[in-house]
């Protein structure tokens, strides 16, 4: 049994469980599945700075903080108790592209050549941690939702604005993977 749990999940199983999170949160307490809002609540909690956008009763939304802390704990449990001894699954065609960037370590869920403390004060750190993170935080709030709030919750509720947002997420991602990231590695391999 434990051996089965150590294997990577099939996409349909993962999709089923993620999809079921929508009704589970609704039935547990009329909560809307969404993760990026947690970033707003943390800002409102810690550095509201008299900005109108952060003046609201974040205590009412505290469930969301419990939820994301759970994700963190789940990440810990799955990694350290149910560790898959094999390399991460990556398509050979993708590996060929990443080889051009000098990435060859598939033992972890993130490429250790990039996600490494020694890169903090390098252009790699600036690009992959600082700029990437900033775009995630700024973009999701401006779009009023992320993959969970728009692509899953919004589409589940058949919201056309969420479809527009999801398509824009994808377009941004394609642009990044096919143009911006390759360009970065041309200069900063």
């Amino acid at each position, binding site marked *: 049994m434990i051996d089965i749990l150590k294997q990577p*999940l099939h*996409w*349909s199983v993962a*999709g089923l*469980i*993620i999809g*079921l999170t*929508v009704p*589970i*949160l*609704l039935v547990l*307490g*009329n909560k809307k599945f969404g*993760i990026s809002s947690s*970033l707003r609540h943390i*800002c409102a909690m810690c550095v509201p700075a008299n900005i*109108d*956008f952060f003046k609201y009763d974040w205590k009412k939304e505290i469930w969301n903080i419990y939820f994301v802390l759970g*994700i*963190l*704990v*789940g*990440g810990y*449990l*799955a*990694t350290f108790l149910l560790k*898959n001894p094999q390399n991460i699954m990556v398509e050979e065609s*993708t590996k060929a592209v990443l080889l051009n960037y000098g990435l060859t370590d*598939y033992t972890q*869920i*993130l490429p250790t050549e990039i996600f490494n403390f020694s890169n*903090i004060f390098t252009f790699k750190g600036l690009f*992959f*941690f*600082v*700029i990437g*993170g*900033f775009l*995630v*935080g*700024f*973009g999701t709030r*401006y*779009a*009023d939702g*992320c*993959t969970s709030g728009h692509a*899953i919750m919004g*589409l589940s*509720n058949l*919201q056309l*604005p969420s479809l*527009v*947002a*999801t398509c*824009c997420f994808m377009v941004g*991602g394609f642009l*990044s993977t*096919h143009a*911006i990231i390759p360009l970065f590695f041309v200069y900063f391999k």
Partner: protein
Amino acid sequence: MKNIKYLVVGIFFGIVFVKAEIISWFRIQEMFLLHSFYMYGVIGTAVVVGIISVGLIKKYKIKSFEGENITFEAKKHTKGQIYGGLLFGVGWAITGACPGPLFAQIGSGFLVVCITFVSALCGTWVYGYFSEKLPK
């Protein structure tokens, strides 16, 4: 204490994120390089399950365990969904993470992702600071 249940749901969710390798940076590259069906399968299945669930909840007017009516809000079209969506998409491919996986990556022991996380908080804060001035 009534919030503990959301912690438990989060834990399961985080485990699935890791076990399906959704939090893998490589997965996100595969998806945007169109080399693998995996992420499309995950998101597609989740949306289908979500649509059916929400449909059933609306049809049978199911209430929450606390006896509350389950409500849905209509989203409005804004320019933010386009501009913000594009910016987030670019960041998604760079970091290999949307906000949920950021938490799971940190839990997985990649403490360096804390920097990405703090930067994401800064991004959210900066949005809040300029939100009135940005095209809506």
